C-alpha cells in the first residue's frame, strides 16, 4: 500500500517528541533567587547547613532548605529582598573562610530537575561582565631571565667560577626563536676561564643556550639565552598560573558560576554573570599588588646622599617612602616576597589604631624571616609595596606597550623581637589594606594582565533583550503559521505542526547541551523558523507540480517527497558550511548564533521531512480513493 510508514518510524518520531517536550519543559519555569556558599579552600565544614538554617530561622527567613551540591551549599529563597538579607547575614556570620554569592536556581520541579535543565543564558541576556585579558608574556620572560641571572650568580659562586659580572640585556625585537627574548652576558677576565665556565654551565643549564663572544670592549663574554622550549614552558606556566590566580580572585569577589578560561597562547577570558560593579572587578582582577620585606641599609645621611647622586651603592637599592616621598636605601637581598605569604587578612592595628594587614608566612618564608630577624634585632626592616601595570596604547598609528612599575616603601620599623610566621604590616589606608589582603590570599599574577576587551550588560538591558527576543520569535512564528495555513491548507497545518516541533526540539537540544543562548542566538532561532518551512515549501510545491502533471494523489505525494529530499539536503548543507565557518571564527554571542542556526538546520530536516510525512501518511496513506488533496 502506498504512503504507509513502518511502525518503527512512528515510534522513533514519538520518542523524539517526548524527548523534546521533556527537555524543553524546564525553560517554562523560570528562576528562583538563591544564595550560594562555598569554602575558600578545602571542604565545607560539618553541620554548616544546620547552622545556616538556624541563623535564617532566627532572622525570620523561614522555609529555606539548604541543599548540598558538589562543594557548594545552595539556599533557595522566596524573593530578591530575602536573598540580599540572607547573603548579608550569612556572610557576616561565616566570615573570611567562606565565599557567599548571589545566584539563580532553576525553579524546575525536582523530578524534572533530575535530568533536564533550562537553557544557559549568555551574558547579554542575564547581564554581567565579559573580560578578555592579555597576559604580558614579555614581562614573564624578563622575570625568568632575572631569575636565571640570580641562579647563575649563586651557582658560579658555589662552584668557585670567577667572573666579573652579569648583565641582562632586554630584547628589542623578535629573534629567530620567534619570541622577544633578552640575553644574559656573563663577563670573564680571559677567554680560557670563559671557555672552562661555558663547559660547566652548558651541562648544568639545559634551559639556556650559551655562546662565546666578545663585548664592545673586546672582553670575553658568555652569552646565555633561553631556549625556545624553555620560553614555551615559561609562557604556558605564566598563563596557567594567571588562570589559577584569577580564579582565586573571582572566588574572593563572590561570583556565582564564573567562567575563567584560557584563550589561545596568551589570553584569558573571564565572565562574571550578574556582576554590576565592574570597576571593582577590574581593579581586583588586573591588580598586581604584592609585598616584599627587605632590610634597610645605612642611615638617613646615606639615603639622602644616594638620592642626591641618583645612584645607590652596589649592595643596595634606592626607594621612596610612600607617606612623604623621602628616599630610603634597602638591601638588595629580599627576606620574604609575596609568594611566600600563605594567608592574609585586614584589620586594625591595636596599638596605633591604623589599618593593618595581618600576614601568615609559609614554612620556608617563616624560617627565613625568623633567622634574619634574629640576626638583626635593633635594625630597621622595610615593607615594599609593588604594583605592575601594562597598557597598550596607540601612538602615531603604532601599537605600543607601556609598562609601569610602582615600588614604594610603605613602612620601615625597628625589629624588636624575633619574627616568625605571623605578623602585621601597617602604612596603607583601609581600602588598600582590604584589597591587598585579598590579593595576597589569592596569590600573585605571574605576569601582569591587561584588559583588552570588555563587554558589560546591565540587568535591565539583559531583561529587555530576553523580552524583545521572545516577542519577536513568537510574532514571527505566528506570522509564518498563519501564512502556511492559508496557502497550503491541510498540508500547511501539518507543516505548522512540524515547525512547532522544530522549535521545541531546538530548545530541547540547546538545554540538554547546556549551550549558551545569546541574543544573536535568539535571532538564529527566528531565522531558522523562517527557513525551516523551506523544506516543506519545496515538498509541497513539488506535490502540486506532480498533481498538475496529472499524476495520482498517492503517486504525487510519494514523488513530491522523494524528489525534494536531495534538493533539501544540498541546500541545507551549504547553509551549514556558512554556520560552521561562523562558529569557528566567532566570539561568544556570534558562536551562539552559529549554534542555533546549525541545530535548527538539522532539526528542521527531521521534522520537515520525516515528521510531516508521518502525519500526511496518517491522513492520506492507505486510502485507495483520495480524489483531491487540500494543498
Amino acid at each position, binding site marked *: 500500500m502506498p504512503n504507509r510508514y513502518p511502525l518503527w518510524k512512528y515510534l522513533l518520531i514519538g520518542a523524539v517528541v517526548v524527548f523534546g517536550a521533556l527537555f524543553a519543559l524546564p525553560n517554562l519555569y523560570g528562576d528562583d533567587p538563591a544564595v550560594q556558599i562555598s569554602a575558600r579552600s578545602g571542604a565545607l565544614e560539618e553541620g554548616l547547613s544546620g547552622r545556616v538554617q538556624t541563623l535564617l530561622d532566627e532572622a525570620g527567613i523561614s522555609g529555606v532548605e539548604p541543599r548540598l551540591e558538589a562543594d557548594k551549599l545552595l539556599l533557595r529563597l522566596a524573593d530578591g529582598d530575602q536573598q540580599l538579607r540572607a547573603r548579608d547575614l550569612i556572610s557576616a556570620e561565616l566570615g573570611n573562610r567562606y565565599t557567599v554569592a548571589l545566584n539563580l536556581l532553576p525553579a524546575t520541579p525536582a523530578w524534572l530537575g533530575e535530568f533536564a535543565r533550562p537553557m544557559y543564558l549568555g551574558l547579554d541576556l542575564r547581564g554581567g561582565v565579559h573580560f*578578555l585579558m592579555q597576559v604580558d608574556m614579555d614581562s614573564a620572560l624578563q622575570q625568568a631571565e632575572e631569575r636565571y641571572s640570580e641562579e647563575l650568580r649563586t651557582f658560579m659562586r658555589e662552584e668557585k667560577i670567577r667572573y666579573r659580572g652579569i648583565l641582562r640585556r632586554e630584547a628589542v625585537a623578535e629573534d629567530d626563536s620567534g619570541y622577544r627574548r633578552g640575553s644574559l652576558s656573563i663577563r670573564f677576565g680571559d677567554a680560557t676561564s670563559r671557555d672552562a665556565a661555558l663547559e660547566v654551565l652548558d651541562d648544568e643549564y639545559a634551559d639556556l643556550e650559551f655562546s662565546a663572544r666578545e663585548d664592545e670592549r673586546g672582553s670575553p663574554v658568555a652569552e646565555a639565552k633561553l631556549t625556545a622550549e624553555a620560553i614555551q614552558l615559561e609562557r604556558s606556566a605564566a598563563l596557567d598560573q594567571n588562570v589559577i590566580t584569577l580564579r582565586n580572585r573571582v572566588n574572593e569577589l563572590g561570583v556565582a558560576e564564573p567562567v575563567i578560561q584560557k584563550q589561545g597562547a596568551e589570553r584569558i577570558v573571564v565572565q562574571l554573570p550578574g556582576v554590576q560593579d565592574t570597576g571593582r572587578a577590574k581593579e581586583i582582577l588586573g591588580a598586581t599588588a604584592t609585598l616584599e620585606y627587605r632590610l634597610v641599609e645605612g642611615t638617613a645621611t646615606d639615603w639622602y646622599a644616594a638620592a642626591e647622586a641618583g645612584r645607590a651603592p652596589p649592595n643596595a637599592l634606592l626607594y621612596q617612602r610612600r607617606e612623604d616621598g623621602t628616599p630610603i636605601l634597602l638591601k638588595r637581598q629580599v627576606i620574604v616576597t609575596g609568594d611566600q605569604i600563605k594567608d592574609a587578612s585586614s584589620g586594625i592595628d591595636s596599638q596605633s589604631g591604623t589599618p593593618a594587614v595581618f600576614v601568615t608566612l609559609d614554612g620556608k618564608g617563616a624560617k627565613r624571616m625568623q633567622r634574619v630577624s634574629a640576626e638583626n634585632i635593633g635594625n630597621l626592616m622595610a615593607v615594599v609595596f609593588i604594583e605592575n601595570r601594562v597598557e597598550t596604547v596607540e601612538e602615531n598609528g603604532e601599537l605600543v606597550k607601556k609598562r609601569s612599575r610602582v615600588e614604594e616603601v610603605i613602612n620601615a620599623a625597628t625589629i624588636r623581637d624575633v619574627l616568625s610566621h605571623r605578623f602585621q604590616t601597617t602604612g596603607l589606608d583601609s581600602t588598600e589594606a582590604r584589597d591587598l589582603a585579598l590579593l595576597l590570599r589569592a596569590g600573585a599574577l605571574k605576569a601582569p594582565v591587561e584588559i583588552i576587551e570588555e563587554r*558589560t550588560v546591565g540587568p*535591565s*538591558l539583559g531583561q529587555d533583550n530576553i523580552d524583545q527576543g521572545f516577542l519577536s520569535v513568537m510574532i514571527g512564528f505566528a506570522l509564518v503559521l498563519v501564512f502556511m495555513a492559508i496557502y497550503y491548507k491541510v498540508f500547511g497545518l501539518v507543516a505548522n505542526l512540524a515547525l512547532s516541533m522544530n522549535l521545541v526540539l531546538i530548545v530541547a537540544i540547546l538545554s540538554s547541551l547546556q549551550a549558551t543562548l545569546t541574543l544573536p542566538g535568539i535571532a538564529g532561532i527566528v531565522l531558522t523558523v523562517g527557513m525551516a518551512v523551506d523544506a516543506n515549501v519545496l515538498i509541497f510545491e513539488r506535490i502540486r507540480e506532480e498533481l498538475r502533471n496529472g499524476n495520482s494523489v498517492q503517486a504525487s505525494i510519494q514523488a513530491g517527497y522523494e524528489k525534494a529530499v536531495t*534538493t533539501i539536503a544540498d*541546500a541545507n548543507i*551549504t547553509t551549514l558550511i*556558512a554556520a560552521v565557518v561562523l562558529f569557528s571564527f566567532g566570539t561568544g554571542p556570534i558562536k551562539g548564533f552559529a549554534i542555533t*542556526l546549525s541545530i535548527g538546520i538539522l532539526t528542521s530536516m527531521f521534522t520537515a521531512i520525516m515528521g510531516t510525512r508521518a502525519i500526511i501518511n496518517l491522513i492520506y496513506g492507505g486510502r485507495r480513493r483520495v480524489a483531491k488533496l487540500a494543498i
Partner: protein
Amino acid sequence: MQNDELNVRWDVMGKRRAAMVLSLLLIIAAIAALAVRGLNFGVDFTGGYLIEVGYSQSVELGPVRAALGDGGFGDALVQHFGTASDVLVRLAPREGVNSAQLSEQVLGVLRDTGELEMRRVEFVGPQVGEELREQGGLAVLYALIGIVIYVWLRFEKKFSVGSVAALVHDVLITLGVFAVTGMEFDLPVLAALLAVIGYSLNDTIVVFDRIRENFRKMRTGTPLEIMNVSINQTLSRTLITSLTTLLVLLALFFLGGSAIHGFAAALIIGVVVGTYSSIYVASTSVLAMGITKQDLMPVQKEGEELDDMP
C-alpha cells in the same frame, strides 16, 4: 508534448539583459559608496568605547555633551539610542591612555547629568579591533571557499562559479546599502552577512538542482529554454520561502530591540537581494559560461533515470 514541456508562464530569462544591467549598476553603486563613504565601523572593528545608559526620563543631548566636554571627553559622540531616554556614548581609543577604567570615568561624569542606569559598556582594545577586522574578512573568504568546493563537488565547475558570482553580488550590495545609509557595521552585522551567504546560496542551489534535473531529463530545448523552465518551476518556492523568512525578519527588525536592528536589517537586505540573484545572477552567469548538456550528464550511475520511470 515536447513543446508543452518548454512552455513557461513567465519569460524570466528573456529579461536577463535588463537584469544584468541592473545588477551591474547596483554593484558599481555599491563599490562607489564603499570607496567614497566607506562603512561606518562599530567599536568591534575600530576599537574604542561604547557606553549605553538609560535615564529615568527623556533627556536632552546638549547638557550631556556639555558635561562630557567638561569632564575631558570632548571628542565623545553622543546620540539617542532607540528611545529619548536612552543615550549612547562613543569614544575613540585614546592616544596615550588606554585603560578599561576609562568607562568608569565616563559613567561617573554621566551620573551627574541625571538619574540613570548603566545598560551596556563595550570596550575593545585597538589590537582586538584589528584582529576582529582581519578575522571577519577571513571568515567571509573561508565561507566562500568552502561553498565553492562543495558546489563544485556536488554540481559542476560552472555552477560553482555562478553561485559565487551571486554571493559576491549579494555581499557587495548589502555592504553598499550599509555604506549609503551609514548604518553601523559591527560583529552581529558581519554574522548576518555570513548568514546571507548561507541563505542566498540555499536559494541558488535549489534553482541549480532543478536545472541539473531538467538538463538530464529533457530531450529538446536549448540551455536557455531549459533554464527558463527550471526557474519557472522553482519560482513559487523561491518567493514563498523568501516571504516567510522576510516575515520573521521583519518581526525581528521591528520588535527585537535596537541591539539587533543592524543584524535584522542586513538580513532583510540580503534576503531580498539574494532571492533576486538566485534567479538572475547565478543562472545568467552559468549560461554566460556556456553550459552544455554534456557538463551535467551523470558521470556514474546515480539512479536518476530509473526514478523517472512511472
